[in-house]
C-alpha cells in the first residue's frame, strides 16, 4: 500500500491539501446588489423642487381617494391644491403627516396622487428624488 500512497502523496503535494471552503449560504440570502442611479437624489438636493397637485396635464381635475384624477366636482373627490407642494411637504405627506395649509381630509388622496406619478408627469423628478435612499 505504501508505494501507491507515496505516489498519491507526491501528486497531492502540488495541489492544496485542503480545498478552499465556499460558503453557499442560505437560499434566501442576497448576494447581488445593483447600483441604482443616484442622479435624482443628488440633483434633487441641489434644487428645491415642487409638485403641483394635479399637474398641468390634468388642470382643474379633482383627486379621487386613490390618487387618480377625475372630473371636477366628482362626489367624494378632492379639489386641486391651490399651490404646488414643496419637496419637504410632499415627503411629510407621504409619511402620513399633514403639512400646514393642506386640508387634512384630502391629505391621503394627495399622497396617493403623488405615489402614482410617472416619468414625464410634472413633479415626477421631485418625487423620484424623495425616494432615493440617502
Amino acid at each position, binding site marked *: 500500500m505504501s508505494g501507491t500512497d507515496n505516489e498519491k502523496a507526491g501528486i497531492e503535494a502540488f495541489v492544496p491539501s485542503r480545498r478552499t471552503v*465556499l460558503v453557499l449560504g442560505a437560499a434566501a440570502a442576497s448576494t447581488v*446588489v445593483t447600483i441604482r442611479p443616484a442622479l435624482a437624489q443628488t440633483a434633487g438636493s441641489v434644487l428645491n423642487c415642487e409638485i403641483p397637485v394635479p399637474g398641468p396635464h390634468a388642470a382643474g381635475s379633482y383627486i379621487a381617494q386613490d390618487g387618480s384624477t377625475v372630473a371636477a366636482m366628482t362626489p367624494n373627490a378632492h379639489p386641486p391644491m391651490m399651490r404646488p407642494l414643496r419637496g419637504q411637504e410632499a415627503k411629510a405627506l407621504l409619511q402620513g403627516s399633514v403639512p400646514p395649509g393642506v386640508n387634512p381630509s384630502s391629505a391621503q388622496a394627495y399622497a396617493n396622487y403623488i405615489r402614482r406619478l410617472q416619468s414625464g408627469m410634472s413633479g415626477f423628478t421631485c418625487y423620484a428624488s424623495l425616494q432615493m435612499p440617502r
Partner: protein
Amino acid sequence: MTAAPRYIAEHRDRVRAVELDGLVVLFHETSGMTHIVAPPAPEILDALREGPADAATLLARLAARFAFEQKDGAEAVAARLAELEQAGLVRRT
C-alpha cells in the same frame, strides 16, 4: 415534471470584474449597469463559463474546486442563479 432551467453566463469580454476586499464589483457593458456581488455569486459565474448548466451541474462543478460546509447546496445555487438572472448577468438557454 419540468426539467431544471439551464443557464449561460454573459461572456467574459462583456463583464469587467474588480475585486474589492472579498467582494467583486462587476460592470456589465451590455446593460451599462454595475453590480456588487458576494461569494458564491462570482464563483458561480466562473463555473458557468465552462458551459451552459443547470443548478445541479453547477453544484458538481463547484464541488470539484471547493469544499462545502453545508449539505444541501443545490437550493442555494438555484437561488443564486435566479438572482444573477434578475441582474442580467446570466440567462436561460
